[in-house]
């Protein structure tokens, strides 16, 4: 296949409107994006308009343990401490807020105290409003304590010190860490362990994963955080989107596999096709 000729033929169709990058993979990544968008629409239709069964989610021990940890806190009469990581509004934080909604609903139902620790003022404000709404929906508006939703510090170690101090003073029975954590992950986990809390972590920084696996009772492996809201709610629409995500992942894996075999055999066809524009 003459890749150079293919490049020349393809260029006029895209050069007016599609941005390029130095890797020359704009078209390949645009096609993946279109595939993903199409699959999202397809599964949206299936989830909302039909009763077609959707793929089952495999068991995730950490998420199954959420109810167990809240139940433990309820029985012991001690609070649940929830921290949503140190980054501002980013995808992991949105995932953390989705889980926080679930945790707030459960703590409102069981009259368990929920303490939220936040390192981002923006996230704290939004989380406070979200938790208050959840409590009102559960008919427990009086049980909501605004002072329990705290912005501690924008500095990661200031935040870790504050959160560990809260866990130890309040003798937390459960500690949930979701979102994006950095070097303070181990300090938070060991602080929670010293306070005797059952710990569930779901954070997206894969460099901190080993520390959390070593020190938490349950750890969600990196992208399982994004599955959490679908898993906990069992909502068809969310599960449908996960199916779309997994299909795109499978496509990428197949392309990587074929590319690795081809490159090992001395052919650059897969790389050339990916870099056609």
């Amino acid at each position: 296949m003459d890749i150079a000729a293919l490049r020349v033929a393809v260029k006029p169709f895209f050069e007016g409107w599609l941005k390029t990058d130095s890797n020359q993979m704009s078209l390949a990544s645009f096609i993946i994006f279109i595939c993903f968008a199409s699959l999202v629409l397809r599964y949206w239709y299936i989830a909302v308009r039909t009763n077609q069964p959707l793929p089952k989610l495999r068991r995730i021990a950490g998420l199954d343990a959420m109810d167990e940890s809240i139940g433990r806190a309820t029985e012991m009469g001690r609070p649940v401490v929830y921290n949503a990581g140190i980054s501002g509004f980013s995808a992991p934080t949105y995932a953390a807020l989705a889980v926080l909604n679930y945790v707030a609903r459960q703590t409102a139902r069981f009259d368990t105290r929920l303490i939220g620790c936040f390192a981002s003022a923006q996230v704290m404000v939004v989380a406070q409003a979200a938790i208050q709404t959840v409590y009102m929906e559960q008919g427990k508006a009086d049980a909501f304590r605004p002072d329990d939703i705290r912005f501690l510090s924008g500095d990661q170690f200031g935040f870790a010190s504050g959160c560990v101090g809260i866990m130890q003073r309040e003798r937390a029975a459960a500690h949930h860490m979701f979102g994006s954590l950095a070097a303070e992950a181990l300090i938070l986990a060991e602080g929670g362990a010293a306070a005797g809390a059952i710990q569930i972590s779901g954070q997206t920084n894969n460099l901190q994963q080993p520390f959390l696996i070593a020190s938490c009772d349950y750890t969600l492996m990196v992208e399982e955080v994004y599955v959490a809201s679908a898993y906990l709610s069992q909502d068809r629409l969310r599960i449908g989107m996960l199916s779309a995500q997994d299909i795109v992942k499978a496509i990428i894996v197949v392309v990587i596999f074929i590319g690795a075999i081809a490159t090992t055999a001395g052919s650059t066809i897969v790389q050339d096709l990916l870099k056609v524009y």
Partner: protein
Amino acid sequence: MEENTIWHKLSNIDKRIIYVVMLFAVMIPLLKPLGLPLVYQREVIDTLAVIRSFPAGTIAYMGCEVDVSNSAELRPMMIALAKVMFELEHKIIIGGFWTDGCNLAAIWLGPVLDSMGAVYGEHYVILGHRSSPTTILDTARIDWIDAYSDRDINNMKLSEMKVMEGLAKASDLGYACIMNPGSPGTATYTTAWTATGTMSMILDFCTSGMYISAGANYQAGLTKGLVGGLNGAAQFEMLVNHPDKAVRSMDAQAFGHVAVIVFLIIGNVGYLNIKKLEREAKGE
């Protein structure tokens, strides 16, 4: 089966004993260094070779994405880097998006460079902290002075400084050395400059925590140099003939690692013997 055998004690050592042992394992070599020899990694040697390949007068950028918490690893790298950049007569542009990055650069690098005969504004400049790295780096691709509002950390005009001559936009840089403790870090710069084809000569100076992902980027060719962790900092100091804090701290790190491994072995010896005793008790 009784639960106070030696194996149970080895398997359940009090945390406080572990902390005390770690304290002495790290403190004693810091006070009395042994001078253990370093093993030089290929990537550190190649990174220095890249820096040395640029001629006198090259404009070099140092991204001081540092905080006091990661200063143990990144400060020695910054100081050794500043020294070699000045010795090679490269112009040093120091910037950063972490809150304390530029302040710390002023505290650490200012005295070092001044003692070597560098003149602020002529040989080096500190741009000062800016928030919103994406906006600044994107604007710097087109107009560097506009990106930084023509002001440095002391509110002096950048356009009037001799060190800024020849730097109109990011592509005028010869190379950029980015301290990489997390985010913002090297990924911020590669996204803004390398992915857009502006400037690809980015060298990664990362903490040990970031070494794994930085290594993947270096192997993929996204960055052109890699110096990782305290080990990398010590090697870099030795290679530029300015041994300092990192070299002195390597012995402490070595003994710290050995202490952890000894505890791992002790814990597992205790655990495996407990399992053996349990199996024997069941077998009876």
